[in-house]
């Protein structure tokens, strides 16, 4: 479904991504981890057209995404969230979701006034637990609520490939759990790539994990394989108390 | 519409409109014309007014914006029901007001030299038309042996039309036009133009720039080493007031063409200058358009007296042939085209900022806005 081949990104001489090959199958829930600055976000940026790679290609269903403009990529079925969530602050929560849901309708059909709430939007409100805030402008949301809204917007778009950049950062424990359940259910009929630093979350919901380090793929495998890998411990987990972090009581 | 003018003579006086740009780029020039017109009204009132009534000026701001001129003219005519309006400076403002005055059959007195090719029955033109300023200026240059000219002007109708006339004149009189350049109104960067002028090496520059551009032009010309002896720049829109802003250093010695200077020696002018300074300050200067505005009020008052009414058609009829000694000399209204007989005068700018007359036409020239009396100009008016 998604194939990344020989990808490199160089910023002013600095190699943020240094020859990555990566392949994700249909219906997979893939976790992407790695130290800060490993290039995870950059990789997602390249896939979604925000950053142009220096070399390499990104094949989505065999089609090269490199050089396509962002909205074209979205229309092919690739959706993402951002590490710092961005929502439309002056629109209400409902309008944010509605706009996300109607991206496939032609511009001219948008001229009609919205009447009622579509099923997809209602469902997203439900999943994100934002019903009570539906008519508030998104600008009033807290950090975590915004993150939920973003996830909701992504889901209403029903993309075939979802890329989530640290979706549970700043969420409380049970919210992380809710997100985890959500992702698992979404992954049943979608392909999902999640960037996360929360090892507890990873352990509970991940099967396949790819570890990036200094712009390269360090190792790919199951959670346990990865956690056991000394290099991963060295550069990412840290030796002491590595297990303690992120574990609930 | 029709009854408007008659209604101008109310019990409490006769309303007259004063419509100039008091704000915007043209305020620089027009404010002083307004002052001169108000002075004339004051003088007339001091002498008992007209038809036993005082004149009451209604002042409006045209704001350097032509449609505003049209709007304010309408307001003066329809709401204030003024007996006559004195106003305008740029040709564009006059063109905008013209339909208003023609449709309402009301009177406009326009005080500035202009490009001719116009003669509206509802406008009196107290400034020069081209055969009273441009052509005498060319005669003067020819006399001086300056045969290669460079034309510099602001990009609008007066300079463009003036230059067309100049080119026709040159073709008929063996003069050569080495260049013709226009800059937008308010342009202040004359490095390139100066370079072009200097490189062309003309005998003289004929300058129809208007407003602030003159300041930049002369400053930059002067610092490029162009002197009045080597290459005089003859201006037709630079008067005493502008000289102050340009800086005498930059323009002294260059010739200008008008019908009036502050230094013009007539008894009427002595009175005018003294009255103006008394009214507005000793450091104030008088200039041609001011004098033409000042004249306009007096000429109109004269016509009203002669007609015995402020009614427009009667005043128009009465005006033809009125002759008054004015600061610039004898001025006679040509009843046919409602322009004035005026004496053309060439002056040179003095180190004290005043202008000294060096040449004049000897007698008032009959106004000929369509240049019908000039065979070489036959192609101009007809298109």
């Amino acid at each position: 479904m998604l194939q990344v081949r020989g990808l490199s990104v160089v910023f002013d001489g600095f190699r943020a991504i240094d020859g990555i090959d990566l392949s994700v199958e249909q219906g997979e829930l893939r976790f992407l981890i790695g130290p800060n600055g490993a290039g995870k976000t950059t990789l997602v940026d390249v896939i979604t057209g925000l950053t142009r790679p220096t070399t390499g290609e990104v094949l989505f269903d065999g089609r090269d995404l490199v050089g396509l403009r962002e909205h074209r990529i979205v229309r092919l079925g690739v959706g993402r969230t951002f590490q710092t969530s961005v929502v439309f602050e002056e629109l209400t929560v409902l309008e944010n979701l509605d706009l996300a849901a109607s991206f496939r309708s032609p511009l001219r059909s948008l001229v009609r006034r919205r009447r009622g709430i579509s099923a997809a939007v209602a469902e997203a409100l439900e999943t994100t637990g934002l019903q009570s805030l539906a008519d508030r402008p998104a600008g009033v949301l807290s950090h975590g609520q915004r993150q939920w809204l973003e996830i909701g917007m992504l889901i209403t778009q029903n993309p075939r490939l979802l890329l989530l950049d640290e979706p549970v950062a700043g969420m409380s424990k049970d919210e992380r759990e809710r997100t985890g359940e959500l992702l698992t259910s979404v992954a049943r009929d979608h392909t999902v790539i999640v960037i996360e630093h929360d090892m507890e979350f990873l352990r509970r919901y991940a099967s396949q994990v790819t570890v990036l380090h200094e712009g390269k793929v360090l190792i790919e495998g199951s959670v346990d394989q990865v956690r056991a890998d000394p290099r991963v411990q060295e550069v990412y987990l840290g030796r002491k108390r590595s297990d303690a972090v992120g574990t609930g009581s | 519409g029709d009854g408007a003018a008659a209604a101008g003579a109310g019990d409490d006086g006769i309303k007259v409109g004063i419509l100039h740009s008091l704000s915007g780029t043209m305020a620089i020039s027009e404010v002083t014309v307004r002052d001169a017109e108000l002075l004339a009204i004051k003088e007339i009132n001091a002498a008992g007014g007209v038809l036993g009534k005082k004149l009451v000026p209604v002042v409006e701001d045209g704001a350097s914006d032509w449609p505003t001129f049209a709007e304010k003219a309408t307001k003066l005519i329809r709401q204030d029901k003024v007996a006559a309006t004195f106003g305008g400076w740029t040709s564009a403002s006059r063109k905008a007001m013209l339909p208003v005055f023609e449709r309402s059959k009301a009177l406009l007195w326009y005080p500035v030299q202009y490009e001719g090719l116009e003669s509206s029955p509802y406008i009196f033109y107290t400034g020069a038309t081209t055969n009273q300023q441009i052509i005498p200026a060319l005669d003067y240059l020819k006399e001086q042996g300056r045969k290669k000219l460079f034309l510099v002007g602001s990009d609008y109708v007066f300079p463009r039309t003036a230059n067309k006339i100049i080119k026709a004149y040159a073709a008929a009189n063996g003069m050569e036009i080495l260049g013709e350049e226009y800059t937008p109104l308010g342009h202040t960067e004359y490095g390139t133009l100066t370079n072009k002028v200097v490189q062309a090496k003309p005998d003289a520059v004929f300058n129809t720039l208007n407003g602030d551009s003159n300041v930049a032009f002369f400053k930059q010309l002067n610092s490029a080493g162009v002197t009045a002896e080597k290459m005089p720049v003859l201006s037709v829109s630079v008067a005493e007031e502008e000289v102050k802003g340009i800086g005498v250093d930059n323009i002294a010695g260059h010739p200008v063409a008008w019908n009036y200077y502050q230094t013009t020696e007539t008894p009427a002018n002595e009175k005018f200058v003294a009255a103006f300074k008394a009214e507005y300050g000793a450091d104030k200067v008088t200039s041609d358009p001011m004098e033409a505005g000042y004249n306009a009020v007096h000429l109109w008052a004269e016509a009203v007296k002669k007609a015995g009414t402020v009614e427009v058609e009667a005043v128009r009829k009465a005006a033809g042939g009125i002759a008054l000694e004015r600061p610039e000399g004898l001025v006679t209204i040509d009843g046919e085209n409602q322009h004035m007989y005026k004496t053309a005068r060439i002056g040179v700018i003095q180190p004290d900022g005043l202008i000294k007359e060096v040449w004049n036409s000897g007698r008032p020239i009959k106004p000929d806005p369509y240049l019908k009396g000039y065979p070489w100009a036959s192609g101009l008016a007809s298109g």
Partner: protein
Amino acid sequence: MLSVRDLDAGYGRARVLFGVSLEVEPGRLVCVMGRNGVGKTTLLNTVMGVLPATAGSVVFDGRDVTRLAPHERVRLGMAYVPQGHETFPQLSVLGNLQVTLEAAGGPPEVLEEALETFPRLKPLLKRPAGFLSGGQQQQLAIARALVTRPRLLILDEPTEGIQPSIIIEIEEAIERLHASGLAILLVEQYLDLALRLADRFLILDAGHVVHSGAAEELRGEEIHRLLAV
């Protein structure tokens, strides 16, 4: 050290905090917990003066700072790391640190110290902060707070978006700072981390303090009940 009394605050017509009181004694670490959107950030913003308090008072070191501007509070020794790894994006990493240092008027050595805490920033010193990864920005943000040599450090979810090994380092750093006598007010979602570090707890729900007490009081089921939906 910091004493907050009956604090009310909100945005426009929406009131968010309702009579919040809390106390941070010198050298103590107080942790504020609560679900998304209960008003934790709002509380810190009000303590720091970013948001005006509509009622109640904030007293720092015996001085009423309720009406002081944020920068004045910084001069008095309060430092704040806002949520969401904020930086001056077009200044270099070094510039980010310098500008704070200069504003606070501290000695240049502090800058070295801060960089020792986050050695991973060292190779990035010249890079514009806006180009850093999320985690790098967060490290920079904490380092920036440290260069002001505060006596009270306020941290809003400092481990958000940070790799596990650095979370450990941050945790250790907080421990060290705490041990050295610095008072700390912390918002943290990782319960176990909070439990290890905090002396006292404050649990917020819908803008009210629903529970506060010593760390020991908050073990076991109790806390889950309080933090659950």
